[in-house]
């Protein structure tokens, strides 16, 4: 009986709650919309700012201004034919560095590995041609180096020997023995006089591939492609 009496009240309350929640929902939507519109406006303002800043930057950095700066300060000039590298071979021509002390260390390690492999696999015959070849090529490589300042080479030679004498015993004894073995049949030279030279030269050709390995070439190609695609034709 009491429940029936309260029925309209419950109805009113239910409808009130429903209406209120609907209103809240709509209010929520409206506020979201207002926020969105506000954001849109801010985006537009930002775009306008970007545009005006781009214009300002473009005007301040206009080509005539750059040209003037170049004339006054930078003094850059257009690249000439010799500065473009056509192929791997022409790129390798630029590798005219004289070997320095850092290279020496790295080469020693490399050669010792090869010597180790050669020693474990077979004593003389397979290792021999490889190292002979390396030695023979090293002569060719060494020739262009003669253009380099001779002082540098002289200092290297002097720096080399004490190092070899003092701190080589672990790795070097093994290495020094390899050229000694190899050279006797191949070149008939007194190996004992120039073991370090032979070693240094033996590793020299190995440096060329590292200079021009696939990663380097791939990077160069990717850069060239990027430059070309960003160039004038599109």
């Amino acid at each position, binding site marked *: 009986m009491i429940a029936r009496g309260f029925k309209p009240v419950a109805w009113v309350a239910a409808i009130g709650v429903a209406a209120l929640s609907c209103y809240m929902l709509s209010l929520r939507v409206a506020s979201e919309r207002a926020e969105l519109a506000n954001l849109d406006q801010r985006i*537009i303002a930002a775009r306008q700012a970007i545009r005006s800043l781009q*214009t300002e930057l473009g*005007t301040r950095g206009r*080509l005539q201004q750059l*040209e003037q700066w170049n004339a006054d300060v930078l003094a850059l000039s257009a690249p*000439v034919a010799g500065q473009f590298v056509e192929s791997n071979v022409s790129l390798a021509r630029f590798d005219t560095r004289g070997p320095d002390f850092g290279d020496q260390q790295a080469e020693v390690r490399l050669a010792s590995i090869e010597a180790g492999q050669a020693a474990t696999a077979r004593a003389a015959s397979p290792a021999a041609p490889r190292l002979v070849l390396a030695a023979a090529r090293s002569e060719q490589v060494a020739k262009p180096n003669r253009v380099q300042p001779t002082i540098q080479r002289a200092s290297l030679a002097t720096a080399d020997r004490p190092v070899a004498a003092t701190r080589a015993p672990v790795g070097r004894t093994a290495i020094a023995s390899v050229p000694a073995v190899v050279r006797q049949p191949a070149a008939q030279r007194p190996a004992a006089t120039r073991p370090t030279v032979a070693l240094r030269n033996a590793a020299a050709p190995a440096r060329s591939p590292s200079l021009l390995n696939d990663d380097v070439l791939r990077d160069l190609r990717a850069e060239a492609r990027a430059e070309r695609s960003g160039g*004038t034709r599109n």
Partner: protein
Amino acid sequence: MASLAAQNERRVLHGDDQQGLTLTYHRLMLVLLLFAGVTTLIVVRLAYLQLFSDHEGAAQLANPLIPPRADITDRNGVALARTIDSWSIGVHPQRVIGDRNLLAQRLHELMPERSAADYRALLSAQTSFTYIARRAVPELVEAINTIGEPGIVFDREPDRLYPQTALAGHVLGWTDFDGRGVAGMERVLEERLVAPALRGQPVALSLDSRVQAALESELSAQVTATSAEGGTGIVLDVDTGEVVAMASAPTFNPNAAGRSSASALYNRATMGVYELGSAFKPITIAAAMDAGVVTSMTQRWDASTPVAVGRHRINDDHPLGRHITVAELLVHSSNIATARIADAMGPARMQAAFRAVGFHEPAHIELRERTRPLWPRDWGRATVMTSGFGHGIAVTPLHLASAYAALVNGGIWRPATLMRVEPGQAAAGRRVYSAQTSRRMRQMLRLIVQRGTGRRGEAPGFRVGGKTGTAEKVSAAGGYNRRVNVSTFAAAFPMDRPRYVVLVMMDAPRGTAETFGLTTAAWTAAPVVSRVISRVGPLLGVIPDANRDIDTSEVMAPIVSSPAPADPATAAH
């Protein structure tokens, strides 16, 4: 119970009361309708606002990003013309309440370009509104605002800005006070730039701003160095007809076009018609090869004695005194031999040759600032002969550039265009030379740069080929002035697969110590071409290569025994 009582009361009502009740009902109904009407009105209004106001707001939000006039960019998207909002400062003279003299003095201190008296006159003018300054910087606006004069008002107005200032001013043109294009591409593209549907999209021209900047700087440096009246330069894509750069010196700043002199506003590349001299010879030779007049590279033409025709006498500056091949003709730039070939061609075929490359009509380009060439009225024997080496017929430098593009690109002539051409969308053009003739011309043009008058146009590694042309300018009194020249060098590179024509023309250069007082094309125009090619070649994707070149031995073989001229300057024309 209550209802019963009411019924009882209603029953006892009299006639007057009955009437009053009806009236009340009517009034109540009226009030009800009024309320209902107002409510409906409010609901309808709300629904209307809900439905339509949102879209209106969105449209207003999108608008600010679309400029009132579309941007113009170069082929790579670098802005060449933009519309920005700039501050303008105006005054309502009737509403000024401060002391006008003091105000004028303050304005003069802030903006010294006008005198205090001028500002005084502006402030007491009888108009309702006048501008004090347009395109004012914010600092100036702030400073004037602090004066606190209510008669002075500030507003943001759209204004056309050319961020690269004088760059490509002749191509871009400028807009008037109301923002309408009145010259250059601004005028040509007027409809497109203000079309509501399209103005959000920038218009891309064929120009490359980097190439344009290099060409302009080299050209103006040479114009200054040689104290020339002016000069012009064109870089043209031979395969599409796109104008990659077009410069005319002296230049002007389109941001303030009104302050420039008439000479600066004059676009020499399309408005100036000149007798371009020996640069015409390759056109004559190519036409003669296609016509069968020149049959082989070994055929020899008499250049031993001057040709007399009517009262004219055609001579070479440095006579060779023997019979020469066409390759020698071009290398030494012999007028005599060219005149003989033109004579053998005859008036009909010579006219056809020039018509084929459009020398009889205004240059094909979008710009409206262009002039009709001076086409000879009477094609007598003398005209035919002199036209063969570029005298008696005057065309614009752009005509010549288009013709050279056809000479080297395999023989297809295409109209020049300033709009960017998408790959594969180039105009079909028309064949004017055979592919074989074009190949021979490439070899001979390269030979001119290797061994002839064009040696100063060489850019190492770029395989440049081209032809010099030094014509005497017609003086104001009529007749030619030997000392005043129009010096042209028309070149293309790289000659093994030509991609761009570069043409430079110097108008009345004067000799300097560096040129040993000479004003010929070899000393004035060719070095500019060389420098421009060295600078822009890598930008345009042409990599210099000293180990590559076109094989010129086929055309050189017949002349290999003859000595090359000792100095390019000696072969003047």
